[in-house]
């Protein structure tokens, strides 16, 4: 399992306004592009010196490609990263203040303590 890579996806998409929109409208294409082109780029290192070994598991790729934040939580993606990016993508679709955040909580309501481990 590559929780680190899940987090890296969420982190690098969240900090880029264009990528946030691209991931919202084309999750399958964005995840495939990102895994091929960006997953192995070390963030503070020239692209030439990229890593060679990082890839998603099938379950991780599927969860990202379907915007499945419940499964991301179950896989141990960092709760803050998932929440922040998904608010950016979907809060706008709800009329009530905190509508998306409360639905997000409801969809996770079957989890009890201890939650899935977020250690990387």
């Amino acid at each position, binding site marked *: 399992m590559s929780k680190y890579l899940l987090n890296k996806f969420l982190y690098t998409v969240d900090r880029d306004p264009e990528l946030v929109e691209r991931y919202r409208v084309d999750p399958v294409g964005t995840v495939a592009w990102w895994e091929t082109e960006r997953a192995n780029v070390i963030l503070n290192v020239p692209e030439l010196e990229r890593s060679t070994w990082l890839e998603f598991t099938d379950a991780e790729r599927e969860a990202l490609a379907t915007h499945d934040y419940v499964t991301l939580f179950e896989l141990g993606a960092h*709760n803050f990263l998932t929440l922040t990016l998904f608010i950016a993508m979907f809060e706008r679709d709800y009329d009530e203040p905190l509508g998306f955040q*409360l639905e997000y909580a409801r969809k996770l309501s079957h989890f009890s303590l201890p939650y899935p481990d977020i250690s990387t």
Partner: protein
Amino acid sequence: MATVAAVIASTHHPFYYRASTSTGTDRPPFADEWVSKIEAFRETLTRARPDVLVMVGSDHFHQLWLDNMPQFLVGKAPFYDANFYNEEREFGLPRMFLRGHEELSAYLLRQGIDAGFDLSFSNELRIDHSITCPLITLRPQADLPIVPIYTNIFAPPMAQPKRFVELGRTIRQLVESWPSDARVAIIGTGHLSLELGGPRQFGPHGPDPEFDRKAVGWIASGDLESALAEVSLDSLWLPGNATHGFMDFMLMMGVAGDNVKADYSDSLDLFHTMEAYFTWYPEARK
């Protein structure tokens, strides 16, 4: 030697800026009470007449990332840009530009490392809302030089609560030994019980009001013994999955001193989390 003019511990609620500046139907019903509490809290810093602010907070995966994650980091730069695109997007926070105090940063780094803390440093640090929120609440003119200190309360493995307390005690000693006639306020922000990205998030209160009640009592009375006896890295998951930010409150209890009662304490029960505000005046005890 420098004077610790005030020690301040606070929550940092990123929605305060938007709530306090909104008008008409956009203004939430709790905004007026919140603003009034913040203005009273602000006065506790103003009256201390600080020249420099040491600001303890935590980067929320903005500049600091899992490929190179420091546990404790001191900024040492002449200036700091502040707030990030996703904080503008989600909270409506303004971009800010802050002056640094490199001399005090250098002193805390040198002496802190020599005191047994292998502190990381940054010469180009963009500050996030853990430090800009208390500036917005306590010193909105943002006119004083700062020394930012970041702690990792976000990415396991983290340092033990006891280590946060020890760092707080050390920061206090170091500021008091700094050869300067400056008046230094040491300000740190953290969380009480908090859930982010979990089933208990954004409820009508914080996720664990009982923890919050106990925690406010520990802070207000300086009861580090009880806090350290009851709080561990494992236990902090229980009140809410983002409650490790309470360790920054524990750090500030270390700054304030064992069993030193806060000279000012206040709280506000909001949706999502409880706000809490504390100020100590070490000078008054000398």
